[in-house]
């Protein structure tokens, strides 16, 4: 049996980076990815089955059958869910993970995002805490992620942020919505700036500039101009000759020896229609399966020393699951504000990420990517819009090019009861116990979300909008593509799962490198922070 230096479970935003850094540093790396490698034409253009609108399926793994989860709603009802259904909290399973089909907003968190408890105090019932590291500890890794993945932005305009270096590529081009919203923000006295995107605005790292097709979110990029781990660090890992990537490989558990020391990973593949179990050995194991599945792996790997699961001696694994609430508002304008040029998201304000009176945290607000007509049908129309007949047809015809959406990811106030556990009965196609999701965000999150919704309304009302409306906000669990928090970092093993370098407490050779590490999830899309942390974890591994 081959013994590797490192096994990385998951080839997404975190795992792809760990694999690349370690392989280039001379380590022999095995990457296990439960999804597969996709060509852009295999991801396709199905407007009903994708990661933006998953009405009847989606366009990557996991397969709809054989991969269930159980979700408990706030009324206590448990439902068995397939991966494309609401409440499953899926992220794309593929080589590249979510980075294959994301919109690629590439934000750094702000210094205060790492000190939420110190800044605001801890609301009763929440698990709000400071990170064990500061923004400064991660600044170099942020810069490296921006460089090595490839991010376009305007550092001069992003003056709200203590960054020192320019973005490697200029920001995305203007569009009519940016003019409209910049004018309104100026009248309100708010800052605005372009949205940083991991999308090539000029040729970069041997791949071309964006062709502005407008299908970033939920799909793969036709010109290979959207940057993820699948077209940066993972190819580098393979080019080193020291990385073996096994796709369609479902990890079952982390393997330990009799003393409880981690020695490898058991996983399953399907060959000729038959499931096969494998065991791979390594000196170190890094879990990058995403906040939900990495927690599942730890919980599914009990030993005599840790009967409740690896790293779970203090019942912390899987708790404080969080994502983002996405409040916002929409408006219909007198004239068209649509030019058809992707990505479409061009302007943001960070005026309200912190410093809101009586409110904990806040959010960045930005306009939206070009909507698909069906995402417009389902999510962009006011609740009283006609649903059928000539009136509905004319409202679509009349409104599609005139509607603008502003929304943003609210920094959640984590709750320890929002959590991943293992369902006692349900198993996946390989017989592995599946995830049970339960609980809801802390109620403070709702107050912040309502506050941000009102700021989005303010922004749109400061334009020449004919009508402004917003969607309702309700208590629930959020995780999904921004899932985080289940394996949080901390210096105290009683209140965290991993240490400040991603090592699971009590283990020197078991690590986590994904959104699970996030203590809090920022008021921004989290992927650049996942990437920066992966660089940090990997950097530490090659020097120790």
């Amino acid at each position, binding site marked *: 049996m081959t013994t590797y230096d490192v096994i990385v479970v998951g080839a997404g935003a975190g795992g792809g980076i760990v694999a690349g850094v370690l392989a280039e540093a001379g380590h022999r790396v095995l990457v296990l990815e439960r999804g597969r490698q996709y060509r852009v034409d295999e991801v396709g253009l199905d407007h*009903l089955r994708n990661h933006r609108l998953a009405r009847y399926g989606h366009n990557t793994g996991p397969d709809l059958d054989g991969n269930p989860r159980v979700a408990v709603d706030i009324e206590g009802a448990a439902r068995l869910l397939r991966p494309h259904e609401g409440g499953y909290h899926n992220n794309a399973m593929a080589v590249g993970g979510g980075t294959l089909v994301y919109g690629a907003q590439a934000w750094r968190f702000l210094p205060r995002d790492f000190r939420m408890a110190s800044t605001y105090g801890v609301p009763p019932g929440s698990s709000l805490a400071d990170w064990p590291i500061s923004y400064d500890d991660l600044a170099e890794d942020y810069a490296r992620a921006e460089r090595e993945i490839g991010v376009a932005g305007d550092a001069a305009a992003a003056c709200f942020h203590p960054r020192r270096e320019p973005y490697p590529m200029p920001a995305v081009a203007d569009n009519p919505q940016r003019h409209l919203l910049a004018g309104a923000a100026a009248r309100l006295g708010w800052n605005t700036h372009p949205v940083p995107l991991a999308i090539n605005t000029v040729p970069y790292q041997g791949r071309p500039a964006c062709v502005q097709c407008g299908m970033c979110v939920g799909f793969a990029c036709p010109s290979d101009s959207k940057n993820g781990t699948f077209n940066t660090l993972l190819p580098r890992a393979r080019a080193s000759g020291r990385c073996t990537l096994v796709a369609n490989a479902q990890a079952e558990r982390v393997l330990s020896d009799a003393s409880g020391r981690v020695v490898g990973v058991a996983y399953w593949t399907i060959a000729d229609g038959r499931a096969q179990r494998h065991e791979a050995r390594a000196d170190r194991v890094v879990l990058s399966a995403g906040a939900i599945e990495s927690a599942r792996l730890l919980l599914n790997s009990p030993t005599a020393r840790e009967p409740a699961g690896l790293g779970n001696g203090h019942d912390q694994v899987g708790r404080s699951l969080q994502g983002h609430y996405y409040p916002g508002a929409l408006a219909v304008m007198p004239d068209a504000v649509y030019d058809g040029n992707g990505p479409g998201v061009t302007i943001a304000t960070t005026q309200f990420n912190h410093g809101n009176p009586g409110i904990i945290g806040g959010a960045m607000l930005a306009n939206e990517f070009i909507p698909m*007509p069906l995402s417009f049908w389902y999510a962009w129309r006011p609740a009283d819009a006609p649903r059928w007949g*000539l009136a509905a047809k004319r409202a679509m*015809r009349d409104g*599609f*090019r005139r509607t603008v959406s502003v929304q943003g990811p609210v920094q959640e106030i984590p709750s320890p009861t929002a959590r991943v556990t293992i369902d006692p009965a349900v198993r996946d196609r390989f017989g592995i116990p599946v995830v049970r999701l339960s609980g809801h965000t802390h109620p403070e999150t709702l107050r912040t979300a309502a506050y941000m919704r009102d700021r989005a309304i303010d922004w749109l009302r400061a334009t020449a909008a004919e009508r402004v409306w917003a969607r309702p906000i309700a208590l629930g669990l959020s995780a999904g593509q921004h899932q985080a928090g289940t394996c949080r970092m901390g210096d105290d093993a009683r209140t965290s799962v991993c240490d400040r370098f991603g090592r699971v407490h009590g283990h020197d050779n078991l690590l986590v490198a994904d959104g699970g590490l996030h203590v809090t999830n920022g008021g921004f899309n989290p992927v650049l922070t996942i990437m920066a942390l992966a660089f940090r974890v990997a950097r530490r591994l090659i020097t120790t």
Partner: protein
Amino acid sequence: MFTGRRGEVLRALVDRMIPADDVPGGWEAGVGDYLARLFAGDLAAQALPYALGLDALDAEAAAAHGCGFVELADERQDALLARLADGGATQVWPLAPARFVAWSADLCAEGFYGDPANGGNRGGVAWAMIGYDPKRVLPGPPA
């Protein structure tokens, strides 16, 4: 499942959900093809309840007007659908009639505004109507 009389009711319903104006209506744009594919595929398990809903719609028309849904004038079809959307039913339904109307509206919108490869939106007619003009050209599989 959707042949014969039911097929005629479905066609009439699709064209009330998305009527023709200077742009083709739902049926001409291929929404029927979209629905046939969907109810033979992802929604195969829902085909019978939906078909029974079409039967109930036809029966409502007969009870109210003495003729089937297909034979009603457009305005009377619309008025009947509006009554059902408000919950005003007299016949036996396999699901709440308001839900049937809302579901039909979404299904027809999916066919009409979705990508043509799903069977509806023939020639991109709905996208041209609303002004959605994706530049997207997918590369084919490598030779």
